[in-house]
């Protein structure tokens, strides 16, 4: 089964200055259950690609399907629900909501889905325990270390049990030990939950440990088998 199918994707940013072409005519497929890494130089459009896959940005051309659904073609409400149920995002700078505790941050996707607060907090507590932060649940986002914040962000991304996890340089802002711990956690959770994971990273060591490696350049995207597939 194909988890992601991108066909002829192009994206150009138009702002105050001249238009900036990020990439054009990208096509690739990611089979379900793959733990894939995306590498490439800065500015080549790795984050933009994740945003297009996750439906929080729109391509200028082309089409992207997630689990057979062209997310861009859904009306706003259904697109939001699809994201809530099927896709989890982890960002480089964790992007936790600073006004809320770790537990409340993780409960937020459930609250958005309409789950009652007490039930949402209970489920958030379970997944926080899974990422090793049971004792930090009541701490405010600002009171956590960088590694803890990223683990909370991972817990939040997985709160609704998505089939697809999009992680945009989740280790990019961490020291080597924390980065290793976060990567290991992602790898474990990926295996436990049988989901598809796309990891954008600049770390070739981590990338090599993924099932599949996509390398983005100005010219396009090239897929290669990762270390795990090569055995």
């Amino acid at each position, binding site marked *: 089964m194909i988890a992601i199918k991108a066909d002829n994707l192009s994206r150009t940013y138009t702002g105050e200055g001249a238009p900036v072409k990020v990439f054009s005519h990208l096509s690739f497929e990611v089979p379900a259950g793959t733990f894939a890494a995306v590498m490439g130089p800065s500015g080549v459009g790795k984050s933009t690609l994740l945003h297009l896959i996750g439906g929080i940005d729109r391509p200028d051309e082309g089409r992207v399907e997630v689990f057979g659904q062209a997310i861009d073609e859904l009306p706003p409400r259904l697109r939001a629900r699809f994201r809530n149920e099927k896709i989890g*995002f982890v960002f480089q700078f964790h992007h936790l*909501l600073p006004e809320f505790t770790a537990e409340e941050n993780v409960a937020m996707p459930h609250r958005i889905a309409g789950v009652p607060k007490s039930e949402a907090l209970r489920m958030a507590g379970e997944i926080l325990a899974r990422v090793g932060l049971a004792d930090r649940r009541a701490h405010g986002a600002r009171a956590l270390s960088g590694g803890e914040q990223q683990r909370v962000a991972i817990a939040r991304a997985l709160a609704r049990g998505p089939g697809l996890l999009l992680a945009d340089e989740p280790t990019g802002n961490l020291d080597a030990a924390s980065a290793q711990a976060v990567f290991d956690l992602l790898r474990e959770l990926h295996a436990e939950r049988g989901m598809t994971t796309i990891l954008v990273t600049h770390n070739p060591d981590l990338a090599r440990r993924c099932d599949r490696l996509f390398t983005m350049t100005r010219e396009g995207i090239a897929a290669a088998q990762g270390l795990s597939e090569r055995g």
Partner: protein
Amino acid sequence: MRFETSIALRYLAASRRRAHVALIATISIVGLAVGVAALVVSLALLSGFQDRIRRQMAERTAHLTVSPERGVLLPDPEAARRALAALPGVRSIVPILEGRGWASDVDGTSTYPVRFRTRAGGGSGEAAAPDDASLARPLASRLRVAEDGLVRLTSSRTRLSPVGPIPVSAVLRVAQIRRSSAFENTAEIEVSEETARILTGVPGGAHSLEAVLDDPERAEAAARQLAAKLPAGYRVATWRERNAPLAFALRLEKVVIFVTVALVIVVAALNIVSNIALTVVEKKRDLGVLTAMGAAPGSLLRIYLTLGAIIGSLGTAAGVALGVGISAAADRFHLVPLPADVYMLTHVPFAIHPGEVAACAAFALATAVAAAVLPARAASRLAPGEAIRLSR
């Protein structure tokens, strides 16, 4: 509690840590509170005066009037009186005769055209001698007469005498000098029924009948009952109908004051616009993250509308408390005195009408939410990917 409300509450609570947002939020709340308080106090002040006017109107004027539909005399005054008397809650019924003439002091040095009529049922109606008269204060001043003094009232009607037609006149004792006010639709001189009959030349019957009710608020219902009982040829009017222009003026006055003072609330609401717009800009990244988590554009809109409603509620609640407190204290402790010899009141009265306070609160709240619409719509239309990308 919906998650949108949780987020809006946290944004407001957390604004304490962001000095500029906290300042604008405080200004928004205080501005709204001052506006609401000003509106509540203004309306309480106006209601205080207007309630007095209405109360005096109800006390001094007859509550029901039966007059002929055509001509000047009632077709069958006795039948009309019986119909009136049969109504529940009728306290008194007075036949009314009225006419025009001239009032002068007994020396004849000052003469003024006046309207006269029988003593009204609603007002100063204690039993009086046939030659007693009640004068409006301005007329008494012009004639320079005091209570127990004498005035000559000459009717415009004449009677034939051996020397030709001569005017009919009567010398009357000034039994009472009335304070008069703009809302009193009474004649300058009120006389006894006997005197009125002589001056008008109407030996029987009446120009109209006036009735006073135990409860003036029942006047409309009583008028409907009476109109159903009376045959054709009679017109029934309530005290409210007869004073409709004044009542309209009072209502208009209140509307004008409301609209004028409510502008303070509108100006205060502009602070809410800037407060919420600032929060939208500051929380742009959060909006993108919430969208990534599955929040729909409508939810983002609701977050900021709720924020506007919370700021509006706080400002409105403070304003209502302040306004009601000031009005109640001013009325209870007579904080605004008036010279009693100039005005009929010793202090400025304040009356708090719950309906008016509710209208002020509803207007303020609606304005606050309306002020949040523009920035909230901007938040809901934000491109989430761009919000995250640009906030790294």
